[in-house]
C-alpha cells in the first residue's frame, strides 16, 4: 500500500494550528484522564459538540479528539496508581500493581514506567495501524460470533492465573461479575432480565457505574476507616526514576502486551478493558513468582502497554471498516459522520488529509505525551501530599459527576453508592475486586456471541471449531493453561502455585 496518504497527513498535522490543536488535545486529555472517575468517553462526548458548534474544521477536530483520546489513556493511570481509584475501565488492572508500588514509596517510578509503557504500546499500535491497517481489517472481518466466543474462552483461560491463594473467592467474584451482565435487555431475545420493571435498569448496569462504585467509593470508605484508626501514614513520595535494570525487566512484557493489546483492540466488540485484562493475566501466568499484585513493575507495564496499544488498534476497524472498535471510537466515528465523512477503505484515497492527518497526529501526539508526562511525574506525585479532607470530597464529587454527566439520573448515583458498599464488604472479606470486573467485561461478549453462533448454526456446536481462527484460539487457550504448569514442573520451583488451572 502506498504511504502517500501518510505524507499528506504529516503535512496536515504539522501545520502550526493543527499542532496547537494536537497539543491542546493531549493536555485536555491528560487532564480529563487524571481526574478520578472521569474517562475519555466523557471527555470526547462533552468536547465534540462544543468543537462542532465553534466551527472547528474536521481535520483539526479529529486531531484534537485523538489527542484527548490518547492523553486520557496516559492521564487515567495517575489516579489508579496514586489513589487506587481507576479513572476508566482500561485503568482497572493498572491499579493492581501500580498502587502497591506507590504505597511502597515508588510512586514516581510507577508513573514513569506507566508513561514509558504507554508510549511504547501507543507507538507500536500506530506503526501497526500505518502498515497493516487493511490487512487487520480483514482479520476483524474473519471474526464472527463463533470466533468471538472462542476468544472469550481464551480470555477465561488466562484468568486462571488470577486464582490465587483463595480460589473460591476469586471464582465467586468472577461469577458475580458474570451474573451482573445478565441484568437488563437480553440482546438476543429482547427479554428484560432482572429489571424489576425499572426502566433505568433495562440497559443493564453501566460499566462506568460499576467501576466507579466498586473502586472509588469503596476506597473512600476504606480511607475513612484508616483515618479513624489513625492508620493513614503519609506515603513517601519517592523521586527515583526507574533503574535501567527495572526497565530492562519490563521489555519483554511491554512488547508482548503491546502485541496482545493491539490485536484485541483491532477486534470490534472488545476494547481496552479486555486487552489490559488479558495481557495482565497472561503475564501473571507466564512470569509470576508471587510478586504480581504486590508492586511488580511488570504487572504495571503489562496493562499500560496493552491499553494504549488497544486504543490505537481500535482505530483500525473504525478507519478501514467504518465500525468502531470501542466506546470512545464510537463517539469519534459519530464525530466524523457529523462532518459528513464516512470512514471505510475509501477514506484513505478520498480524504487522505483526514485519514493521514489522524494517523500522523498519533505519532506526534504520542511523542508530545511522553515529553509532557515524564517531567510532570513530579507534579502528579504531589497529589499524595494533599490532605485527605481536601482530596476525598473532590474524589466523591467527581465520582458523582462522572456518572451524572452521562446518565443524568440520581438513581444511577444510588446504584453507584450501593455497589460501593458491596465493594467495601467484599474487600473486608478478603476478595479481590478485579475478578468481578473481569467477569463483567467478558460475560456479555461471551454469552451474546455463543448464543448468536448457535442461532446461526441452528444449535450445532461444531460451529465453534470450524474456522482456522477458532482453532488457533482453542490452541492458545490450552497452551496458556498448560504452559505455566509445564514451566513450574521443569523448574521445580520451591513454592508450587496451585497448578489446577480451573476457570477455563
Amino acid at each position, binding site marked *: 500500500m502506498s504511504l502517500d496518504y501518510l505524507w499528506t497527513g504529516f503535512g496536515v498535522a504539522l501545520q502550526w494550528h493543527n499542532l496547537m490543536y494536537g497539543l491542546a488535545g493531549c493536555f485536555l486529555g491528560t487532564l480529563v484522564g487524571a481526574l478520578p472517575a472521569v474517562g475519555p468517553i466523557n471527555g470526547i462526548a*462533552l*468536547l465534540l*459538540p*462544543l468543537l462542532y458548534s465553534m466551527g472547528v474544521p474536521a481535520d483539526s477536530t479529529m486531531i484534537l479528539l485523538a489527542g484527548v483520546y490518547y492523553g486520557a489513556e496516559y492521564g487515567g493511570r495517575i489516579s489508579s496508581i496514586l489513589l487506587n481509584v481507576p479513572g476508566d475501565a482500561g485503568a482497572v488492572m493498572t491499579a493492581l500493581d501500580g498502587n502497591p508500588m506507590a504505597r511502597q514509596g515508588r510512586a514516581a517510578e510507577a508513573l514513569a514506567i506507566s508513561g514509558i509503557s504507554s508510549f511504547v504500546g501507543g507507538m507500536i499500535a500506530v506503526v501497526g495501524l500505518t502498515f497493516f491497517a487493511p490487512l487487520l481489517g480483514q482479520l476483524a472481518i474473519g471474526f464472527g460470533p463463533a470466533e468471538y466466543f472462542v476468544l472469550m474462552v481464551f480470555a477465561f483461560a488466562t484468568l486462571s492465573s488470577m486464582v490465587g491463594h*483463595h480460589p*473460591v*473467592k476469586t*471464582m*465467586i467474584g468472577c*461469577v458475580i461479575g*458474570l*451474573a451482573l451482565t*445478565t441484568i437488563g435487555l*437480553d440482546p*438476543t*431475545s*429482547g*427479554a*428484560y*432480565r*432482572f429489571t424489576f420493571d425499572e426502566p433505568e435498569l433495562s440497559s443493564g448496569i453501566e460499566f462506568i457505574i460499576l467501576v466507579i462504585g466498586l473502586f472509588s467509593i469503596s476506597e*473512600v*470508605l476504606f*480511607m*475513612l*476507616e484508616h*483515618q*479513624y*484508626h489513625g492508620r493513614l501514614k503519609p506515603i513517601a513520595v519517592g523521586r527515583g526514576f526507574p533503574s535501567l535494570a527495572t526497565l530492562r525487566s519490563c521489555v519483554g512484557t511491554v512488547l508482548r502486551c503491546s502485541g496482545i493489546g493491539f490485536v484485541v483492540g483491532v477486534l470490534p466488540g472488545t476494547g481496552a478493558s479486555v486487552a489490559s485484562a488479558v495481557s495482565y493475566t497472561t503475564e501473571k501466568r507466564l512470569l509470576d513468582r508471587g510478586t504480581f499484585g504486590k508492586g511488580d513493575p511488570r504487572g504495571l507495564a503489562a496493562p499500560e502497554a496493552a491499553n494504549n496499544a488497544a486504543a490505537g488498534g481500535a482505530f483500525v476497524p473504525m478507519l478501514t471498516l467504518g465500525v468502531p472498535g470501542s466506546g470512545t471510537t464510537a463517539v469519534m466515528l459519530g464525530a466524523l459522520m457529523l462532518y459528513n465523512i464516512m470512514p471505510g477503505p475509501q477514506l484513505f484515497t478520498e480524504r487522505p488529509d483526514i485519514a493521514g492527518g489522524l494517523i500522523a497526529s498519533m505519532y506526534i501526539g504520542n511523542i508530545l505525551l511522553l515529553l509532557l508526562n515524564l517531567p510532570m511525574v513530579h507534579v502528579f506525585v504531589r497529589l499524595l501530599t494533599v*490532605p*485527605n*479532607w*481536601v482530596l*476525598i*470530597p*473532590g474524589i*466523591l*464529587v*467527581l465520582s*458523582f*459527576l462522572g456518572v*451524572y*454527566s452521562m446518565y443524568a439520573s*440520581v438513581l444511577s*448515583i*444510588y446504584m453507584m*453508592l450501593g455497589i460501593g*458498599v458491596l465493594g467495601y*464488604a467484599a474487600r*473486608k*472479606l*478478603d476478595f479481590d475486586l478485579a475478578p468481578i470486573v473481569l467477569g463483567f467485561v467478558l460475560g456479555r461478549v461471551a*454469552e451474546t456471541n*455463543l*448464543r*448468536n453462533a*448457535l*442461532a446461526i448454526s*441452528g*444449535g450445532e456446536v461444531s460451529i465453534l471449531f470450524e474456522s482456522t481462527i477458532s482453532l488457533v484460539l482453542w490452541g492458545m487457550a490450552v497452551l496458556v493453561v498448560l504452559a505455566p504448569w509445564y514451566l513450574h514442573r521443569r523448574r521445580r520451583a520451591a513454592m508450587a502455585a496451585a497448578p489446577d488451572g480451573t476457570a477455563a
Partner: protein
Amino acid sequence: MHTADSPGQAGLTARLPGVVLFGFAVVYGIAGTQIEYAFSSDPLGPRSFPVILSLLLAVLAVWYALRPGNAEPWPRGRLLARLVGLLVLSALSATLYVPLGFPLATLMMCAGTAILFDATPRQAIACGVGNAALWYGVFVHLLGVPLPVGTLFGG
C-alpha cells in the same frame, strides 16, 4: 487483624457471607427460570446463562461457608456511625441535586465529608465552597454539561 485460618475455628459470623451468597444464588436462579420471553432465535434462550451461573454460585457459596478463609473485622461503634454517615450524606446530596441544585448539594456533601476526615469547620466550609464552585464552573462553563441549579430557585 482477626483471622480465622483453619475451618474449625471459623465462627458463624465468618460463614455468614457464604449463607447470604447461597441465598442470593437461589433467588437469582429461581428468578432466572421466571424470565418472560416470547421466543429466542438461539437454542439457549435468555434463561440458560442465569440458571447455570446460579448453580455455580450455589456450589461456590457452600464451599465458602465451609472454608471462609481470612476476613477483617466489621466496623463497629463510632467507626460504623461515621461510615454510615458518609453514605447517608452522599445519598442525601444526590437526592437534593434537583431541588437544591448542584452547587448547594455539593457544598453540603463536601463540607460534611471534610468534617468526617477531621477538618476544622473553617476548612470544611472552604472545601465545600471550593469544590462546588470549581466543578460547577468546569462542567457547566467549560464542558457545557447542564447541571441542575435547583428547582427551589426556579431553575
